[in-house]
């Protein structure tokens, strides 16, 4: 891939994406399309425009600027994306930052420079960089090079992946420069996986098993993680199936990520209608008791929580 990837954001000072203080690089674009995706703006591998009604001061500068008449207060999303030609004139003129360009191309050297700024904090906290997204392995060559340069500079490299990638390419290019892999296991039933995530899960599960075996042979540590999505991934059937997989593969540690509904506001900003099948539970934070019940299924099976 000759083109540089789109980066959504490099978020510094993250304490929830691996050990220590980390900088998280969010790639834009993902092979899956999970309906609950908590970074919906990272799904498409193209530049987008977003509108944040909370930031808007109602000055209407943008209405006058837009050459395509794509903006209207009547429109609940404000931007008519069928008309918008992504010229971003409105973003330049907007005084409040309510209109924003989502995703920007970044070269490896710029990315490395931005991450290395935080290196002193990695060093005192045993932190590092986390490649996340979107899906970082969508840009295998770029990812490999970035990981290589950072690792050579002494930065701990963690990759968060949905697992949908070509194993051999990953092993050849990226694996040598990775210290830790967070690997999502979402849904065990392939049909249901396809329904909610857009693709079936065979490649993902196969990749997981192969990487986990590598880990047991002294390879890179890998931690399977499961987002708890109400009535989709947190069902007894699904969790039991995951636990069976873990038993087969001798997995003794995992992480559960309780559901939160913050992504729904982000959907609105980039013009995505809420999914029709998101029920009441999708509008609320997952209750602590429900999380405890889920965790217990694992701990009863002798699997520890990270």
């Amino acid at each position, binding site marked *: 891939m000759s083109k540089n990837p789109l980066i959504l954001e490099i*978020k*510094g*000072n993250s*304490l*929830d994406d691996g050990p*220590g*203080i980390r900088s998280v690089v969010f790639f834009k674009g993902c092979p899956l399309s999970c309906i609950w995706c908590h970074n919906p703006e990272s799904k498409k591998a193209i530049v987008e425009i977003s509108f944040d009604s909370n*930031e808007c*001061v*109602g*000055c209407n*500068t943008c209405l006058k600027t837009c050459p395509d008449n794509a903006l209207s207060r009547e429109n609940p999303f404000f931007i008519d994306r069928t008309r918008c030609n992504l010229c971003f004139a409105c973003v330049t003129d907007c*005084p*409040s*930052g309510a209109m924003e360009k989502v995703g920007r191309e970044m070269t490896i050297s710029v990315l490395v420079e931005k991450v290395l*700024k*935080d290196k*002193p*904090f990695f*060093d*005192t*906290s045993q*932190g590092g960089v986390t490649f996340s997204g979107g899906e970082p392995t969508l840009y295998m060559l770029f990812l490999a090079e970035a990981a290589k340069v950072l690792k050579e500079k002494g930065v701990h490299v963690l990759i968060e992946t949905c697992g949908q990638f070509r194993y051999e390419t990953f092993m050849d290019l990226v694996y040598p420069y990775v210290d830790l892999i967070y690997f999502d296991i979402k849904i065990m039933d392939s049909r249901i996986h396809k329904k909610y995530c857009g693709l079936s899960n065979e490649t993902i599960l196969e990749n997981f098993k192969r990487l986990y075996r590598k880990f047991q042979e002294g390879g890179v540590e890998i931690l399977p993680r499961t987002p708890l999505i109400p009535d989709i991934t947190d069902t007894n059937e699904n969790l039991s199936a995951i636990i069976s997989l873990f038993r087969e593969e001798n997995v003794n540690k995992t992480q559960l990520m309780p559901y939160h509904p913050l992504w729904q506001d982000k959907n609105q900003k980039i013009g995505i209608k809420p999914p029709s099948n998101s029920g009441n539970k999708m509008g609320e934070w997952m209750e602590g008791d429900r999380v405890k019940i889920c965790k217990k299924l694992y701990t009863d099976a002798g699997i520890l929580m990270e």
Partner: protein
Amino acid sequence: MRTKNYMNTLTNWTLRLMAAQFNYRPSLQKYLNSTDGWTNFSIGLKTENGTVEQAIQFQNGRVKVLKYIPDHADATMRFISDDVLKEMVKITPNETINLILKNKVILDGNMAYLGAFNYFVSLLMGKRHQKMLERANRQEVKSRKEEYGITNPEFSEDLLKRKNFRLKAETIDPGVKHLTDPYLSQYSLDSFPRIKMLHEKHLHTTPEISAERPVLLTRWYRKNGFEKDTNGNPWFSEIRQAHAFQYLMENKKPIIRPECLIAGTTCPEEVGVLIYPDTTGTVIWGELGSIDKRVLTPYFISDKTAQELHDIFPFWAKRTTRAWIHEKYDYPFCQKIDERFVASFNFKLVSISHTVPDLPRFVNDGTKAMIEEVRQQIAVLDEGETDKLNTLRSMILCLEGLNSYAANLAQEAGRLAEKETDLKRKAELSELSRICRHVPANPARTLDEAVNSAWISWIGLLMENTNVSLSPGRLDQLFQPFFDKDMKKLSTKQEKKQYLEHVLELISCYFLRNAEHHALVPDVSNYLFGGSQSETAITVGGVTPQGKDAVNDMTYIFLKVTEMLSLSDPNMNARFKLGVNSDTFLKRLCEVNYITVATPSMHNDDAVIEAFSQNADKIEDLRDWASTGCVEITLSGKHMSHTGATSVNMVAGLEMALNNGYHPLMNWHLGPKTGRVENNDFKTFDDFFKAFAAQQKFIIDNTIALNNMSAEAYAYLRPTPLLSTAIQGAVQKAKDVTKGGAIYNTSGSFNIGLCDVVDSLMVIKKLVFDEKRISFKELKEAIDSNFQYNPSLHAMVLKKVSRFGSGSDEAVEMANRVTSLIHSCYKSTKNFRGGDYTVGFWSVAQHVAYGTLSGALPSGRLAYRHFSPGVTPDASASKNFLDNIRDVARLNPRNMDNNIAFNVKLVPAADDSREKIVNTMYSYVKTYFEQGGMQIQFNMVNSDVLKDAMANPENYKNLLVRISGYNAYFVNLNKDMQIEIIERAEYRS
């Protein structure tokens, strides 16, 4: 000028009614009298537009109303409009002073007499005044609960639970000789029932105004004269002060508090408010009848105390630092600026003793040796060196006075021991009696003797010097040799454990003793310096004068006591030397900060020493620095540093630069004419920066002029011979420290609103001059209207310019340009003692007070809102806390030799482990220091908890918060300050 109107008649009637009451009711008339005779003074009242002019004259027991203001009126209140005068009738007398603060009433003249006048008004109003206050109180409580508060009892419980889990130390520092777990994780307040009881009692005691000190001193001065002695010869000030001090110490009530392991108190009250009538004491004259009912920090006051103070205040009204300057320099311009409270505030008028005295001298050598040293100095004086002789004699008198007090304590302890039936306590009291017979006269031999010696000496120093920011310094260094020696005498493990527990109790008692006295907070200061106490700064850690790791057993003992008691005073500070002090030590500082929410404050030795090296050459002295008051730098025991001399509102200079020298809220054209935005006078950004620099220089020059007069006032009114024995150089030079006796002589400034100024200058530079997106006039119009009519411009200034703390090189450069400017303004002057000014960027609580007195700014900050505290970037600067850390670390320490305050609010996630919380904090601090950062302090609490505390203060009596440099109990803060802390940026940790 308008002619007189009906308000004039109304005012005349009201004053005549008042006069009649005092003239015909003997019960009131008696208040016009004091031991000195009739209290004579006159107060003028007028409006700026001339609609009203009246005066009331208290003369030889008669009250007269005059239809003009006499030339010699002691004070005149100028009301900015008729409406303000009407407002004044509706409010309580104590609130009058707040109208002055808000510049709605301008006071010319002697503030003490305004207090007297207010007190007379409150006497007339009687119960009605108290009822008004009670109503105001209820409204305030209701507003906190309903407008801001939330209620969730789990929050306060969760906060308390922090104390239940404690980490163990991973390694042992080289200086730790006896502690097996330096974190002392096995102990909590519950391990010490006696301390727990004393602590509870302390937190539930309302402070009481203490009349002991001023009454005894005034009695002595009335008898022996102040300006002249009984023979009519002018007093040599040091000798006068020393005799008065000796009288005070001999007659002060010796008190040993129940269950306390330390003898002596600063006052007879359980928790007392000390009064210094020659500086601020008379400010509460107007509040004598109402101080127990006021909304913020109410004090208990007995009728006897109120009467005693009313009797002595007339003696002091013309002998305060303010009155002295007014008289001597004919009400100088610089004083007029100061008394408007907007551009600067001279703290020296309150206190001169923000310093760290040589406590080791009292403890290690004792007063006998100190007296002997002074005698030897006397012996080598040449004939005719009378001033030197008197200076040295005054020192001896003070040290003897201190010894008399210790002897009285010994006697009292003996008396109590005899009466005591509990055998354990009886033994403790006998031991205290023995200790007080030995120290501070002789060198201490045990830790108990050392701690008592330090405390008794401290009482002496506080009886002489205002209890604001006098700081004991590096107590872990002072006490460690005694602890080490005591421990070595013990052989069994059990004995050592018991002794360690005794030491934890002893140091806890020491903390509680330090917390027993409050600094006097007149109602006006509740708004200027809310929640601020004595600011007794203790410093632990760092390196020895030889550069070795100074962390020792006592360091960790002090930290344990800090953790257990969570007191707002003493103010705990810790030094950290990279490459020398251990990570174990730094992690412990972080854990204590997390458990207590807000203490200790942490300093980077390298940056502090680099900053201060411009004022001292000797590396050994620099390495022996200690925090003073809030965060400031004093070279222990050698340095009259008055680190909190004067504060400057840098935003006022900016507002004046935008208005050609005129200040809108003051409605006063005080500054130089530096150009008008409206006339397009500024062609480049540098043109404007020059105007800004000229206004800053004007303000700083004036505040320095006043500060130097104020220093002169001290040298006459209150030289400090006892303190002079405790700062090296004064005995050798035979010169009082108020006159330059110390080895090092600096005065410290604190400059407020840095980030608001920098962000504003960035907006002007970027949007007006570099990018030309808006015109300066357009921006000025928006500011003048508080951005009311131009929301898109408001959004633009807030969003489109990189702020300090966002990682912008340009903003950091601007910040260093501003600090460099301020630094050079101060460094081009000298203080009264011939020393340099030092320059600090911390704000006590004045970022809130000055904020309420400042209009809207180019940065987008709206009118009357608080500024950002200290050097802390505005909450909007960046979502990434690391950007804040990096930018603050890039501030050049050479411009900040009176230190900084960098306040950070961190909020750990609910399920984070203690290790994760501590390790993350540690990483922030360590990296910040590695990058050159000077000082950092955390508030480890989220806004919801603070809002619960606002609504349910009874559950949070012990909740500490860092304001800017100092700690306070959150529930004691004024509403604006509570909101400021709630609105601070919150970073996940």
